[in-house]
C-alpha cells in the first residue's frame, strides 16, 4: 500500500442477511491510509458483521470490498497479510503462555523464529505483560487478556488494524492503557478501524466516525463536523424535583424562543441559539411549585449528536453492552 491515494479500506454497497435479519444493508464507506476510523452503533447494529466481512470471516451477499486497493470481495485471503484483527472476545489459546501465544500468532504470518521472539518480548514489555509472559493465557485477568489479544493483532506489524470493541468488559485502568496503545499505534501510521459503543472513546480517539443503526450507516463525518452544529447551541440543564406533568408544556408557552426537553430523573434540558440567563427560568419553575436543585451549562458532545442522529440513548446502549460483557470500562 505505497500509493497514498489508495484508500486503506473501500466498501461499496455491502450487504449481509442472516435469515430474516438484514445485518448490514448497502454499507458504503472509505477509510483513508493512516486514519483512525470509528464505527459506532448499539448492540446488533451490524458492526461485528461488517468487520467479519472485511476480514474474511463472513461472506457478503452483495457489494464490493477493497483492502489497500486489493479486491477482496471473492478472495478475502488476498489482503490478509496486510491486516490485523482484534476480535470483541479474546480468542487466544488458553493452554499456551502469553509469550507462546504471541510467537504462534507471528508464525501464522510467516515470521521466522529470530524475528518473532524479540518482537513478542518487545510487545509484552510495551503492554506491561512482561512479568506474565510465561504464565498460561487461561490465568490472565480480563484486562491482561485484552492487552495480549491486541498485541497478537499487531504482532506482524499490520498496515490496517481492525479493533472490535477493544475496551468492553475491562477495568477503567486497563481501558485507559488500551486507549493509549491505540493512540500510539495511530501515531505510528497504522490505519485503524475501531468499532465501539463508548461514544466518548470514539470522540477522543477517532478522526472520522460512521454511525450504524439496524445495519444501515446513517451518518459519516469528522468528529469536529458532527459536533459543530450542536456546539453552536447553548444548552443548560436543570435538575428539578416536584416536576408536575404539565410543567414542560407551560415552559414552552412561557419561553417560546427556547427548546425544552424533559429527561429521565427530573432533568430538563434547555437549548437556545444565544446565551440565556437562568434566573427567569428558575423563578418560573419555583412559582410553579417545582424545586430547582441545580442548573448547569452543558458542553455538547458526540453523545448528543449520536442521540440526535440515531434516536438511541447512549446510556442505554452502554448498559446493554456492559451487561453482555459482564464488566465495564
Amino acid at each position, binding site marked *: 500500500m505505497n500509493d497514498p491515494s489508495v484508500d486503506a479500506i473501500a466498501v461499496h454497497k455491502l450487504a449481509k442477511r*442472516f435469515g430474516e435479519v438484514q445485518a448490514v444493508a448497502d454499507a458504503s464507506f472509505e477509510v483513508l491510509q493512516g486514519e483512525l476510523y470509528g464505527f459506532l452503533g448499539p448492540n446488533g447494529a451490524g458492526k461485528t458483521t461488517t468487520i467479519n466481512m472485511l*476480514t*474474511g*470471516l*463472513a*461472506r457478503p451477499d452483495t457489494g464490493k470490498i477493497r483492502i489497500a486497493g486489493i479486491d477482496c470481495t471473492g478472495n478475502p*485471503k488476498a489482503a*490478509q*497479510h496486510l*491486516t490485523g*484483527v482484534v*476480535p470483541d*472476545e479474546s*480468542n*487466544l*489459546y*488458553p*493452554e*499456551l503462555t502469553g509469550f507462546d501465544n504471541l*510467537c*504462534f*500468532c507471528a*508464525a*501464522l*504470518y*510467516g*515470521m*521466522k523464529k529470530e524475528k518473532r521472539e524479540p518482537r513478542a518480548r518487545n510487545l509484552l514489555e510495551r503492554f506491561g505483560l512482561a512479568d506474565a509472559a510465561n504464565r498460561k493465557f487461561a490465568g490472565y485477568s480480563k484486562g491482561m487478556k485484552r492487552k495480549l489479544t491486541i498485541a*497478537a493483532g499487531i504482532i506482524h506489524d499490520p498496515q490496517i488494524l481492525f479493533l472490535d470493541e477493544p475496551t468492553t468488559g475491562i477495568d477503567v485502568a486497563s481501558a485507559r492503557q488500551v486507549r493509549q496503545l491505540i493512540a500510539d499505534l495511530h501515531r505510528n501510521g497504522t490505519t485503524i478501524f475501531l468499532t465501539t459503543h463508548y461514544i466518548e472513546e470514539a470522540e477522543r480517539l477517532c478522526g472520522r466516525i460512521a454511525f450504524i443503526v439496524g445495519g444501515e450507516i446513517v451518518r459519516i463525518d469528522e468528529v469536529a463536523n458532527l459536533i459543530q452544529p450542536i456546539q453552536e447551541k447553548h444548552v443548560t440543564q436543570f435538575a428539578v424535583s416536584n416536576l408536575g406533568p404539565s410543567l414542560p408544556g407551560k415552559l414552552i408557552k412561557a419561553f417560546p424562543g427556547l427548546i425544552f426537553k424533559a429527561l429521565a430523573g427530573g432533568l430538563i434540558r434547555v437549548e437556545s441559539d444565544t446565551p440565556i440567563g437562568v434566573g427567569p427560568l428558575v423563578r418560573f419553575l419555583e412559582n410553579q411549585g417545582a424545586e430547582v436543585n441545580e442548573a448547569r451549562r452543558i458542553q455538547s458532545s458526540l453523545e448528543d449528536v449520536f442521540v440526535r442522529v440515531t434516536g438511541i440513548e447512549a446510556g442505554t446502549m452502554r448498559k446493554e453492552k456492559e451487561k453482555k460483557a459482564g464488566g465495564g470500562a
Partner: protein
Amino acid sequence: MKWWIAFWNILVKDMRAYYLKPPNISWGLIFPLAWTGMFFIKSGRGLESVLSVLPGVMVVSILFGTTSMLSVTVTFEKKGRSFDRLLLAPIPLELLMLAKTSGAILFGTANAFIPIILAAFLTDLSQAAWGAVIPAIILLAVTSTFLGLFIAVSVSEVFEAQTFSNFFRFPMIFLCGLFFPIERLPVFLRPLSYVLPPTYGTDILHGAFGIGHAIPIPIDFALLIVFCIGLFFLSLRNIQKRWII
C-alpha cells in the same frame, strides 16, 4: 509469505497442546493394548492367532488414534473462536486444514506400531510385506483423519462431534473386515462395507501379513487415495459453507 512456517507451527502447537499430553499418550497406548489382549483372549487359539488379529487391531488403533482428538483440535477451537485466528491468517484453507490434521495423522500412524511392536515379541513378522504395510498404515491414518475432520466440521458442538464419530467408528469395527470376513456378513450389510474406507486398508494389511485378501492391492490403494481426496475436499466445502458464513 513463508507458508511452511505457519504449517510447522500449527502442527507443533497441536502436538504439544493436545497429542503429547500424558492422558492422550496413555489412551494411545492403552487402547491398542486392550484391543489386542481382548481379541487374543477371545479367540482362544493361543499365540498362533496373533497374525490373524494383528491387521484388525492395527486398524482399530489408527481409527481411534486419529479421530479422537479432532473434535477437540477443530470443533472445540471453532467453538472457542481460536479457530477464527487461523482463518484470519494469510494461509490457504487447504494448507491450514492439512496442518490441523497432520498431528492426528502422525498420532494415528504411531498408534498402529504399538500392536506391531507387541506382536513382534509373540510371533514371526519377517514374512510381512512391509512395502505394503507402511503405505497402507499411512493411507489408513490419512483417510480416517479426514473422516474425523469431515465429522468435526459437520457439527458445531464438541459432544456432537464425539457422538457422531462413534456412530461411524464402532460399526466400522464390524463392517470393514477387521475381525470378521466381509463374506460372512449378512448380504444386505455387505454393500455398506464397500463404502467404508477401512475395508480397503484392512484388505491390504491382510494381504501383507499373508492372511489373504479379497481385492487386488492396487485397487485397494487407489480407492483409499480417492477416499482421502474426497473426504478432504468435502470437509473444506463444509468449512466454507458452515464456518465462513
